[in-house]
C-alpha cells in the first residue's frame, strides 16, 4: 500500500512537468488533431519562397512565432514591413515616395497600418553640363503618413564659370516633405479608385544671396501637392497624376518667385509604369515646371526602370531629359538611384 501510494505520487510528480510547459498554441494543436493529412504538394512545386520548405502536415501544429519577429513598442510595429513589393514607390529628386521625378500618392517605408517604417535613398544624375546628387531619409507612419527630408547638391561645373558664379559652384537645397494618404489604396478597392494623397514640400535654398541676385524673391518656399496613384492590375499598369502648386524656380535651387511678381502657379506631374514582374517596373514620367525667371526653365521627362533587388533594396535607372537649365539647353543624361526601405 505504501509502495503503491509512493508510486502514485511519483507518477503524479512525473506528470507535472509534462502538464506545466504546454505550448501556448492550443487551438492550432486542436485543429491539427482533427485535420486529415494534407494532400501532397504538387510534384513540380519548387521550394516555397525564401527557402521555407513546403508546409508539412506533421509539423502543422508546431508553428511558432517567427524568431525574427520585429520589435513592437507601445502597440506599434517597428520596421516590421508588410507592404507589397514596390507599393512604397521609389524616391523622387525631392526625397518623397514616387517615381524619379514625380511625386506619387504612395507612402514611403514598408510598414502597414499600425507600423513605423524607414527609408533612405541616394540619387545621382549626370547631365550634359551639370551634376546632381541628392540623398535623404523618409519616415513612414502606418499606411497613412510620410515625412521626408532630402538634400540636393547641384554642381554647375564649368558652366559656373560661364555664369560668373565660379567653376564648380554648387547650389544646395533642403526639402522637408510631408504627405498624408486621404483616400483609396493603390492596389486594393474599386478598380477605378486611386490612392489619393495631399502633401507639402517645404524647401530651403542654401544660396539665398545668389538666388535673390538671380531674380528670385525668396530663398525658401512651400509646394502643395495633390496626388492620385492607381495600379490597374488587369493591365499591369501604374498611373499617377499629381498637381503641384508651387512658386519654385528649378525645384527651388534657384529660389522662389520673382522680384518681378511671379508667384504660385499650378504644375502637373504624370507617370506611367508597366509592371514586368513583382520586382520590375518600366515607365515614363513628365513634369511641367514654371519659367518664372526667364532662364529657360523647361519641363522635365524621364524613361525609367526600377528593380527591387530584395524586399528592402530598390534600384532605379533612368534616362532623363531636363531640357534647358540656367539657359544651357540639352541637359539630358543618366539617373541612378538606390533606395533602402524597412
Amino acid at each position, binding site marked *: *500500500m*505504501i509502495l*503503491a*501510494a*509512493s508510486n*502514485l505520487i511519483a507518477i503524479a510528480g512525473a506528470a507535472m512537468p509534462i502538464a506545466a510547459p504546454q505550448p501556448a498554441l492550443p*487551438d*492550432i494543436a486542436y*485543429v491539427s488533431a*482533427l*485535420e*486529415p493529412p*494534407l*494532400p501532397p*504538394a*504538387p510534384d*513540380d*512545386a*519548387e521550394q*516555397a*519562397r525564401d527557402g*521555407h520548405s*513546403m*508546409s*508539412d502536415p506533421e509539423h*502543422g501544429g508546431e*508553428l*511558432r*512565432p*517567427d524568431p525574427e*519577429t520585429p520589435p513592437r513598442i507601445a502597440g506599434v510595429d517597428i520596421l516590421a514591413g*508588410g*507592404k*507589397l513589393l514596390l507599393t512604397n514607390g521609389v524616391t523622387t529628386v525631392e526625397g518623397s515616395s514616387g517615381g524619379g521625378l514625380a511625386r506619387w500618392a504612395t507612402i514611403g517605408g514598408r510598414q*502597414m*497600418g*499600425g*507600423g513605423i517604417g524607414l527609408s533612405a535613398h541616394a540619387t545621382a544624375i549626370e547631365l550634359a553640363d551639370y551634376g546632381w546628387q541628392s540623398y535623404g531619409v523618409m519616415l513612414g507612419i502606418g*499606411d497613412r503618413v510620410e515625412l521626408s527630408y532630402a538634400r540636393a547638391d547641384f554642381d554647375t561645373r564649368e558652366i559656373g564659370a560661364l555664369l560668373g558664379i565660379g567653376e564648380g559652384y554648387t547650389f544646395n537645397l533642403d526639402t522637408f516633405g510631408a504627405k498624408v494618404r486621404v483616400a483609396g*489604396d493603390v*492596389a*486594393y*478597392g*474599386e*478598380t477605378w479608385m486611386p490612392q489619393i494623397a495631399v502633401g507639402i514640400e517645404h524647401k530651403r535654398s542654401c544660396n539665398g544671396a545668389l538666388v535673390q541676385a538671380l531674380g528670385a524673391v525668396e530663398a525658401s518656399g512651400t509646394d502643395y501637392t495633390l496626388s492620385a496613384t492607381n495600379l*490597374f*492590375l*488587369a*493591365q*499591369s499598369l501604374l498611373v499617377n497624376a499629381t498637381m503641384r502648386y508651387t512658386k519654385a524656380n528649378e525645384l527651388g535651387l534657384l529660389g522662389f518667385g520673382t522680384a518681378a511678381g511671379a508667384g504660385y502657379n499650378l504644375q502637373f506631374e504624370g507617370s506611367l509604369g508597366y*509592371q*514586368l*514582374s*513583382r520586382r520590375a517596373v518600366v515607365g515614363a514620367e513628365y513634369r511641367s515646371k514654371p519659367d518664372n525667371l526667364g532662364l529657360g526653365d523647361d519641363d522635365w521627362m524621364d524613361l525609367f526602370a526600377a528593380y527591387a533587388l530584395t524586399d528592402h533594396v530598390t534600384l532605379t535607372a533612368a534616362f532623363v531629359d531636363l531640357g534647358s537649365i540656367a539657359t544651357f539647353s540639352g541637359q539630358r543624361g543618366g539617373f541612378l538611384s538606390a533606395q533602402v526601405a524597412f
Partner: protein
Amino acid sequence: MLLTATAAALMLLQQAPAEGTDWDAEFGVEVKQRDPITGELPVDPYDQSNANAGATPYDNARLVEAFGGREGIRRIAARTVELSEADPRIAAIFAAHDTVRLKRTLGEQFCYLLGAGCDYSGRDMRTTHAEMGVTKADMNALVENLQAAMREAHVPFAAQNRLLAKLAPMSRDVVKR
C-alpha cells in the same frame, strides 16, 4: 507514514469515472464531424450562387490555359492555402478555419473568375470574412502567397495580375481594420 498511507488509501478509494464517459456530452461540447468523403466540416445552410464569388468572370481561353486549366487552378488555390497555413504572419487566421473546405471553395472561386467553367459553391466574401479582423497587411501576405503559388505553376506575370485584378476590389469586404 500513517498520514501518507491514509492519503493514499483515500486516493485509491475515489470512484473512478465510468469507462467510456462521453465527456463532450457531459460538458455540452458539440463536435462537428468531418464528412467522411470530402473531409470537410459541415456549415450552416446558405444560398449558393455564383454571385457569391464577388466578381464577374473573364471569358478568355488563353487566360485559362496560362493557369494550367481547371486542374492547374485547383492546385494553385490549394497551394496558396498551404503556404498561408505555414506563413507565420497569417497562419493563426487559417488555423481556426476548415482549410479543406477553403481549398475547394477558393479553387472554385478562382476557376469561376478566370472563366474556366466552374460554379462557385461557397459563401460571399463579406459573410466569410465577417469578424475575422483581417488587416490590409494580412491581405498583402495572402497576395504574396498566391503570387508564390502562381510562380511555382509558371503562370506569366501579366496573367497573374489579371486574377489579382478580380480579387483586389474584394478588399472592401475582406479588410476590416
